[in-house]
């Protein structure tokens, strides 16, 4: 089982019937000239990358831009179109007074598998009390949270909110809450590794490709910024493959992750085993 835990479906054709909404997505996400992708194209891309499942992540900045960029209902719609290929997360805007109510609905009625939050874009620190109701719901329903961490290319984002060390209090105070630091917290990958070593409820995904090509950048991060042995020996149960498609190169990243010299058993965990534990609990 090969799972891409970090896919943004904002430009999937079935949820882009409205040209105005599509343009809003281009503007807010700062992704351009990519058009929209029919699901047949997505499935072909999965086949080229040898991927079995995609975890679809929405964005909800509704108090800032007037609507969720991708709604939880749209995630549900995509899941219904390909239930054997997609896993769906919920979005929530912590500043929305109805955020908790919407999140509970997303878990109980829409049957979504976790929560995606973006501190840099939504402008909150991970230990901010405003997250309390959302965290309580995630713990009650045993649902994990994926946080954007490190650099964001989106406009109106501030990296200070998503530096890995900002997540320590959250990880320490909620040991039963599984959290993922997306993009491995780049450029602070050693801080991310530090948190993962200390807190087994902290995961990271590999959705990072900010310079060079997929293999070159992975080689830089996972061989030079940290030796490959850190993951292969110590963090092997906490790293999940993610591409951050469409911002990054899903097919080439899926290939590059297999060429870094991890043991086969570690690679299997990164490709899917860890994602299943992150989603369902150990």
């Amino acid at each position, binding site marked *: 089982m090969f799972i891409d835990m970090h896919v943004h479906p904002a430009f999937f054709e079935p949820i882009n019937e409205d040209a105005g909404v599509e343009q809003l997505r281009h503007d807010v996400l700062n992704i351009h000239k990519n058009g929209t992708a029919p699901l047949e194209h997505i499935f*072909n891309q999965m*086949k*080229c990358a040898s991927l079995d499942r995609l975890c679809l992540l929405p964005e909800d900045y509704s108090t800032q831009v007037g609507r969720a960029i991708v709604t939880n209902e749209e995630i549900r719609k995509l899941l219904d179109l390909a239930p054997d290929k997609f896993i769906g997360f919920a979005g929530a805007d912590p500043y929305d007074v109805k955020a908790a109510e919407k999140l509970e609905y997303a878990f109980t009625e829409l049957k979504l598998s976790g929560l995606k939050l973006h501190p840099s874009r939504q402008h909150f620190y991970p230990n901010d009390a405003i997250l309390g109701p959302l965290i309580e719901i995630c713990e009650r329903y045993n649902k994990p949270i994926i946080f954007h961490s490190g650099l964001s*290319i989106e406009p109106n984002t501030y990296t200070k909110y998503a530096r890995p060390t900002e997540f320590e209090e959250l990880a320490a105070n909620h040991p039963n809450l599984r959290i993922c630091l997306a993009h491995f917290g780049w450029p602070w990958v050693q801080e991310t590794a530090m948190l993962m070593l200390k807190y087994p409820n902290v995961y990271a995904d590999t959705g990072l490709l900010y*310079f*060079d*090509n997929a293999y070159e950048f992975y080689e830089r991060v996972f061989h030079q910024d940290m030796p490959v042995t850190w993951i292969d020996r110590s963090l092997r149960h906490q790293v999940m493959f993610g591409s951050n498609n469409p*911002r990054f*190169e899903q097919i080439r990243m899926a290939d590059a992750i297999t060429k870094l010299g991890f043991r086969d058993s570690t690679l299997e965990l990164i490709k899917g085993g860890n994602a299943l534990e992150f989603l369902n609990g150990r």
Partner: protein
Amino acid sequence: MVLLKQIKLLTTGYNQFVLITEQVMELVRESNIKNGMVHVITKHTTTGITVNESLECLESDIEEFLARLVPEHFPYAHARMLPDYGSTAGNPTGHLKAHLTGNHCHFVISDGDVLKGDAGRAL
């Protein structure tokens, strides 16, 4: 008289030949143009159009020829975050292979049909 028709294709492989000869010939027949030229041009800069014989062995040779000239792993400059796209460029090999094949081919239309050699196919 100029008539513009579009063919939309979804590829299923990382590198793939798609035979479009029959579709081009059908569009020419439908056009009712008896004598002239048909220009087949791709809009996408990582796709190419060429004319050759569509034999399994030749397609394999062409694919390996392109792969030798444009290896997958090479320090290409087109591997960086592109501000205009907001995404990372990772497809230099597609661009360079398209550069080698060119983005178009032409056929003469004679008596309402495409004039080509028996072996000629548009890929």
